[in-house]
């Protein structure tokens, strides 16, 4: 926001410097500008609208800043000298506000809220202002800002917007902005009187599957109260009807693709939170109720890393991932050495003891970081959306979660299947006595296995810190889901965890439109409980001798 206005300012300053050559002339321009501003003090809403129009007409370099402030409820009248001032964005609760001079944009001291009178806006005025803003932005050097401006204008197309768009269409170079402008002009062409051109416009619009376009076309098919069509031209109606059904089909397909993607990204989260457990529970048979808290440790590690390197938030994630692995992994090794190793073969007791550990860990972070949630920033490269075609928008953080899960899964699989440690882990889990006889230090392998599973939980925590609140209860809200995924997929089977988690995510998202988020989740849980009755050992049960002993 600040960067964008700064850039806009620079452009305007340049423009102003070229246009305004003499200081004397600048003086008068500034004076008129200030006089206009002064009029805002006790203008009615319709007067304000007129003044805003004049400010825009004046092309004064500060007009945009003033109007943005007016739109953001930050334009005030100071009681001491009755001057119009801009307040810096501040907390609702702040008693005094930092002020900025509207002409120089330099700090103009601060004042208590009581000494300031806000220049109010109403809905109509705000709408006018938004269009005005769009007008400014349409000439911006940044194509993203121009794109936003056109999108804003498409919401309420009128003659003035049409003129602006036409003016811009010739000069526009960016293909996405150009596409949007063309869409706007085509929508405007619907209002014309030439039947052939309107039908052509409708046919073009049929290729732009968007809800907005569909709604506009649907208005051509509406009927009056007396049962006659609003649109008199039958040929136009026929074209509109085909176009609407074509758009509907396209929207259905896009909707399905979107649901699929949402399902996969939810599934990825489930796999990520469960995969550490698939090691500790699945391979070692340890019921680790502190698994959620190990994820919480990973999330807090991300927070600490960000606090330590505030200038490099974008890179902090790459430091946080190994750091979280080490922190949670060490915690896991300590947990295994001090408590769990005394309880092998007594799974229910392990459940209780590790639950005790989870309570203590929660209280530990409460003591260190207080019970409040900590704000973990999302790096700039992870925010934003990937626009595919007209109707499909994919947020980057969901996309990265899917990729990240795949990478973690691949690494874990490689560790288990391709390394010496992995071989020993599998040997010990299949037949401890025989593995020991072959010279494997089973105790060391136990500690390493538990550390590996815990470390992965920490890495999952890094991902969760980007998705939810980082607080002492973070672990508790995920622990049941992670156990469900492991049990559903089949204990002791990494592929089972992957497929189990993904299918749970998909089913959840498929149910959501019909049942709602909470009921969908309940249905998934109930379905899972019933599924386990049919196949008590999950989707991919372990076979062979190891399965019998469990």
């Amino acid at each position, binding site marked *: 926001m600040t960067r964008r206005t700064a850039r806009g300012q620079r452009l305007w300053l340049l423009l102003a410097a070229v246009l305004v050559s003499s200081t004397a002339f600048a003086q008068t321009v500034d004076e008129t500008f200030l006089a206009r501003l002064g009029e805002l003090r006790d203008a009615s809403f319709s007067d304000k609208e007129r003044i805003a129009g004049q400010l825009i007409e004046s092309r004064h370099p500060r007009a945009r800043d003033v109007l943005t402030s007016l739109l953001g409820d930050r334009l005030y009248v100071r009681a001491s000298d009755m001057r119009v001032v801009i307040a810096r964005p501040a907390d609702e609760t702040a008693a005094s506000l930092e002020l900025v001079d509207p002409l120089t944009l330099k700090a103009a001291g601060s004042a208590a809220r009581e000494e300031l009178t806000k220049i109010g806006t109403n809905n109509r005025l705000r709408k006018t202002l938004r269009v005005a803003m769009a007008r400014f932005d349409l000439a911006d050097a940044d194509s993203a800002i121009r794109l936003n401006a056109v999108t804003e204008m498409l919401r309420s197309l009128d003659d003035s917007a049409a003129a602006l768009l036409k003016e811009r269409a010739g000069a526009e170079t960016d293909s996405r902005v150009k596409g949007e402008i063309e869409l706007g002009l085509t929508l405007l062409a619907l209002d014309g009187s030439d039947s052939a051109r309107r039908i052509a416009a409708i046919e073009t619009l049929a290729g732009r599957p968007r809800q907005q376009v569909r709604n506009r076309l649907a208005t051509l098919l509406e009927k009056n109260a007396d049962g006659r069509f609003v649109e008199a031209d039958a040929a136009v109606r026929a074209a509109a009807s085909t176009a609407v059904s074509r758009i509907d089909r396209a929207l259905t397909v896009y909707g399905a693709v979107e649901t699929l993607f949402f399902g996969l990204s939810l599934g990825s989260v489930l796999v990520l939170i469960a995969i550490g457990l698939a090691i500790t529970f699945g391979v070692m048979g340890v*019921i680790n*109720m502190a698994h959620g808290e190990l994820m919480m440790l990973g999330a807090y590690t991300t927070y600490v890393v960000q606090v330590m390197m505030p200038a490099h938030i974008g890179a902090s994630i790459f430091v946080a991932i190994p750091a979280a692995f080490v922190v949670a992994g060490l915690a896991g090794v300590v947990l295994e050495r001090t*408590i769990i190793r*005394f*309880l092998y073969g007594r*799974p*229910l*007791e*392990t*459940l*209780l*003891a590790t*639950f*005790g*550990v*989870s*309570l*203590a860990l*929660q*209280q530990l972070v*409460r*003591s260190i970081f207080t019970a409040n949630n900590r704000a973990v920033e999302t790096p700039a490269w992870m925010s934003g959306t990937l626009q595919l075609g007209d109707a499909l928008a994919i947020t980057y953080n969901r996309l990265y979660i899917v990729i990240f899960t795949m990478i973690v899964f691949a690494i874990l699989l490689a560790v288990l299947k391709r390394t010496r440690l992995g071989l020993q882990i599998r040997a010990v889990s299949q037949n401890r006595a025989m593995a020991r006889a072959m010279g494997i230090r089973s105790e060391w392998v136990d500690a390493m296995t538990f550390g590996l599973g815990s470390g992965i939980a920490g890495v999952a925590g890094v991902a969760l810190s980007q998705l939810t609140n980082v607080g002492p209860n973070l672990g*508790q809200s995920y622990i*049941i889901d992670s*156990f*469900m995924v492991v*049990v559903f997929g089949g204990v002791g089977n990494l592929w089972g965890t992957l497929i189990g988690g993904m299918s749970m995510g998909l089913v959840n998202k498929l149910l959501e439109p019909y049942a709602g988020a*909470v*009921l969908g*989740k*309940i249905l998934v*849980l*109930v379905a*899972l*409980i*019933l599924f*386990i*009755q*049919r196949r*008590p050992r999950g989707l991919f049960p372990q076979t062979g001798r190891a399965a019998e002993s469990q």
Partner: protein
Amino acid sequence: MRRDPAGATLMATLAVAAVLVPILNQLVPASSPLHVSTYVLTLVGKYLCYAMLALAVDLIWGYCGILSLGHAAFFSLGGYAMGMYLMRQIGRRGVYGDPILPDFMVFLNWHRLPWFWHGFNYFPFAMAMVVFVPALLAFVFGWLAFRSRVTGVYLSIMTQALSYALMLAFFRNDMGFGGNNGFTDFKDLLGFDLHEDSTRVVLFVATAIALAAAYAACRGIAASRAGRVIRAIRDSESRTRFLGYRVESYKLWLFVFSAVLAGVAGALYVPQVGIINPSEFAPINSIEIVIWVAVGGRGTLVGAAAGAVLVNYAKTFFTGALPEVWLYALGAIFILVTLFLPRGLMGLLPRSSEAR
């Protein structure tokens, strides 16, 4: 199995409490140091409900080896059934003054009572539901689970999921159980004002009697011939099955009985604390119950009841005096008891004929 010194002690303690506490509350003047305030009376009544819940869990975990992490759900269902009766009793005295609909339904703009709320204005029907609803859920779940031989950790996690699903469901406003806020602002029970000390005393005595009866029943089951089969299932399920016993049936009926006990405990709990909401279903509550049993002594009914009272007393004390220490203390208790006291506090006593 005839002699039961620990059980006799428990029964005697309950009898003394049921007589002495009301006297100290009602007849001894408030200025006297011996006076028991109504706050303490209600608190002890709450502990006794927990003790009953602990008996229910100990019966299936200690004697049959089924670790249920869903007993908070049975407890809450019993509590909700009682809560529905209490809500219907409010009648016109609610904030909105609707003669039939509870406040939250008026608030949600409902015009008719949902079908499952009918009948709850009759006390006997509500009490039947206190028993029937947890029993039905336990029966369906147990029938499915035990028949397909879901055991051990899997069963624990499934019961936890069940309880979690119910919690999510009861949080929904559309369910017709008051959503997030649950039921509260109860007025009276069978025409007696719940805010009166005398009503609270009666509730306390009723809880003490119910706990004694529950203990006697559990003890009876444990000492019976069926009880011996049940312990055999705990020690070796497949061997018992090979001997020709129908393991599923034993487990199922024991599970249902235990769920009913939990439901009754919940029904006694709600009028005393004056509120029931979906957070009672939270999986952590189920785990806490297991901790009480583990602390007191798994497989010793008296130990379970004592553990419930002791842990909850510690909780009240710590959350009042040192709130930040409580979770550390609870965590430490879990770890230390599982590592060093596998038989709980009862294991510290000279070995009796209990359970083994």
